[in-house]
């Protein structure tokens, strides 16, 4: 122990457990070495939470990997600077073998994807025992009991059963809890959490963040948290380091940063964060007729089993859902993963078989042939979540925007080229970019290309399935603005599918909340988001992080009853319930705890 640590008169003076000085990292590329992290310096003080915040490419994950010695080898290397622990141990020049004594024992890390961060063919118990035995925390005989205690520590239900289960049998939230249990198994001083809740539903995110805070209090762990989400920053951080393209922009205590950001970038970043509650005014849509009319829509996916491989059960992905959208109107579909919101989007374009009735500008989608579907699809188009995956990487972007026009025989030759040029300008790109390939564009630009492709046929309805979820907030704001402009000019109707309540508050006229394939509540934006009546809606809203460190979010509301399943035996189905109109246009599913709106 250094003399400073024994000094009792030190009081509350911050005591760094980790110091990073002038950290610079280069990555080898075909065009020579590229500096991806430049001169990063910070101290991580005992017991605090420091957030590295920034957009993609800012170098925040690179910093964390460098501390753990997990930089991709041999492509990336530290070219300057130091990373040192409180006792003077230098990390930047350690070998892999030397790092093994640091990892898990002194610094642990949890990752963004709990789905893929656990070994799929090993039980939870053996993955926990492994880290205990590696670092001689207990004998092999004691390991199961110790593993069980760790699982109980992270508040997993049925901990005994989980020990024997495999990762795929656990939900995302539970898997992240297992990851936290593994990370804390050897009681490390420092926990690095790299986007630990980004892949999780908002209610699960709230629970996991609460867990990290509680464990931090109990164990005195210091947390280095990496996130792009300013709501999570406001909720978790003591201090924040804002990063941008590998450089550090601003370091400040969290309240100071949110109240008086000093750099332009931090100001712009905070301004771009969508906030639940500051909903911009929306023009009145033309409600004289509906362009999209969905009545009693159900989508079921059969599950086969038995000797003759017959359908014995169905996944009721969407169950008896009805809604209408007028020209120029946006209906937002919101719900947690697996609630059926994306399936509705696919059903509207006839991409999955469905029952009920879907009319797009009067034309039926359900049960019609391919030729009729082709005609319907001129009026309804889709923009997907991942613009990288929804563009063909071997086709020029111009050709991809032109394709729908060719398929429908609308334009050829120079007329086709003129149309595509016009579409490129329309979405804020230049026509000279037409001959390039998708990899030459940024995420935001790719999504603009996808929007141009969707607009090519001049559709009347656009289904936007998590279309801005994969984008950085600043880019997200621009794409949302583009969508708004297009809607105003073309009187487009949007079905906006999203899990992000704050984004929905920006774009929606009306909101529909879904769970387990059924619609639980629907009404105007003000009715559903400001005056939620169904307990499920209220729980969802209570979990949304508030990007303001001065406003404490109350703990997330408890789950109302058991988690259901959308799988039913053949001939059975979920109990149908009535939607009651509690205020003009505000419909809520009957539920014992439903609050009557005033």
């Amino acid at each position, binding site marked *: 122990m250094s003399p400073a640590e024994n000094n009792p008169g030190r009081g509350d003076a911050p005591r760094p457990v980790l110091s990073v000085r002038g950290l610079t990292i280069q990555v080898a590329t075909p065009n020579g070495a590229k500096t991806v992290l430049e001169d990063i310096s910070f101290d991580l003080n005992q017991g605090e939470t420091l957030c590295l915040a920034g957009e993609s490419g800012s170098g925040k994950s690179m910093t964390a990997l460098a501390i753990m010695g997990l930089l991709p080898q041999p492509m990336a290397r530290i070219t300057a600077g130091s990373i040192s622990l409180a006792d003077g141990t230098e990390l930047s020049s350690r070998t892999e073998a030397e790092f*093994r004594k640091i990892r898990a024992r002194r610094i642990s890390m949890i990752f963004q994807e709990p789905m893929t961060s656990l070994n799929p063919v*090993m039980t939870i118990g053996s993955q926990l025992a492994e880290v205990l035995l590696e670092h001689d925390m207990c004998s092999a005989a004691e390991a199961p009991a110790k593993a069980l205690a760790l699982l109980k520590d992270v508040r997993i239900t049925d901990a005994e059963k989980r020990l024997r289960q*495999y990762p*795929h049998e656990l939900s995302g939230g539970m898997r992240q809890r297992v990851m936290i249990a593994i990370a804390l198994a050897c009681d490390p001083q420092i926990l690095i959490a790299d986007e630990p809740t980004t892949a999780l539903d908002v209610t699960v995110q709230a629970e996991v963040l609460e867990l990290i805070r509680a464990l931090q209090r109990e164990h005195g762990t210091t947390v280095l948290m990496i996130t792009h989400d300013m709501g999570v920053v406001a909720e978790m951080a003591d201090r924040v380091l804002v990063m941008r393209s590998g450089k550090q922009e601003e370091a400040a205590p969290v309240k100071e940063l949110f109240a008086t950001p000093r750099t332009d970038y931090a100001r712009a970043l905070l301004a771009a964060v969508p906030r639940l509650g500051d909903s911009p005014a929306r023009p009145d849509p033309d409600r004289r007729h509906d362009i999209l009319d969905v009545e009693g829509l159900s989508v079921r996916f059969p599950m086969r089993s038995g000797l003759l491989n017959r359908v014995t059960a169905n996944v009721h992905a969407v169950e008896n859902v009805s809604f209408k959208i007028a020209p120029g109107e946006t209906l937002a579909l919101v719900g947690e993963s697996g609630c059926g919101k994306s399936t509705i989007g696919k059903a509207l374009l006839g991409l999955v078989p469905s029952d009920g009735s879907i009319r797009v500008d009067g034309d039926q989608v359900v049960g019609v042939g391919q030729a009729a579907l082709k005609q319907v699809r001129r009026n309804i188009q889709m923009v997907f979540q991942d613009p990288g995956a929804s563009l063909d990487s071997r086709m020029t972007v111009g050709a991809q925007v032109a394709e729908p026009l060719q398929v429908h025989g609308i334009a050829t030759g120079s007329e086709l080229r003129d149309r595509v040029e016009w579409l490129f300008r329309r979405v804020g790109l230049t026509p000279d970019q037409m001959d390039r390939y998708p990899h030459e564009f940024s995420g935001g630009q790719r999504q603009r290309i996808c929007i141009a492709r969707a607009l090519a046929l001049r559709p009347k309805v656009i289904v936007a399935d998590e279309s801005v979820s994969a984008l950085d907030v600043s880019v997200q704001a621009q794409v949302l603005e583009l969508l708004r402009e297009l809607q105003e000019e073309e009187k487009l109707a949007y079905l906006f599918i999203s899990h992000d309540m704050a984004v929905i508050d920006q774009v929606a006229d009306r909101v529909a909340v879904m769970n387990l394939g059924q619609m639980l509540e629907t009404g105007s934006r003000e009715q559903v988001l400001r005056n939620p009546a169904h307990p499920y809606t209220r729980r969802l809203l209570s979990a949304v992080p508030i990007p303001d460190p001065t406003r404490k979010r109350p703990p997330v509301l408890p789950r109302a009853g058991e988690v259901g399943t959308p799988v039913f035996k053949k001939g059975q189905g979920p109990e149908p319930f009535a939607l009651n109109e509690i205020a003009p246009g505000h419909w809520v599913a009957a539920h014992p705890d439903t609050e009557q709106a005033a």
Partner: protein
Amino acid sequence: MWSYLIRRLIEAALILLGISLVTFVLLYLVPADPARQIAGRSATAETVANIRAQLGLDQPFHIQYVRYLGNLLQGDLGRSYLQRTEVSELIAARMPATLLLMLAAIVVELIVGLTIGAVAALRRNTPVDHGLMVFSFVTISAPQFVVGILLLYVFAVQLGWFPIGGYGTFAHLVLPAVTIGLLGTGWYSRMMRSSMIDVLAQDFVRTARAKGLGRMRIILRHVGPNAILPIIAMIGIDIGLFMSGIVVVESVFGWPGIGQLAWQAIQRVDIPIIMGVTLVSAFFIVLGNLLADLIAPMVDPRIKLK
């Protein structure tokens, strides 16, 4: 599980039925005349016609096939035209030799192939990797009779380490097993290499490193078992590859298995033997694939048999 097994066995029976039909059609269309083969070149047309009638070869195709199928269902593969013995006895006598060769070849393939693939993946894009991949490419492309004759020349004729041919001791087994195994080695090493590279990039391998585990433990406990999953299905397919190889290899090495039996039968248009060997081979291929599908869920808990 049981209903899955029963369904798969019914499927297997249908596959074998299909194969028997296709093979029967092909043999029916072959221009060579078995009766002429049996009677010999100098026999009169009358003798040949007698033999043809005796064997039922003068009947229309569908009658011949239905009769064959009827016997088959009673476990009767018919009698060899030339050897005057039950085909089932001929095959049963030669099956142990072939099964021994198959087992030895699979062991060679798995040990050598998986090791080469794993080493190449761990030393990716180094001279070691390039060298091993050139080797595997050569083993895939080289015809088996060339490999067999080369091995014979070097290790049996020149060095005298192994006998030139025949059956009986372990030394007899080595060269034919290596000849067949080399082809599979090439396939397995390529599969294993790409599978390992995929798994090495997985998030859970990063987690294992973050736990402070050693390199050997990460490779053996985390990378290996996951990398091997896609290989299991390959073993089922591999039996098909093996069956096509034994005809040549058994003849080169004078190995008294069903491959050699088939080779002799093809030369003499001994249709019952050709049919019998084809069906037995098909049976092993179907069985191999079924076993691979049954083993998969034991190794990968995410797979459920339905």
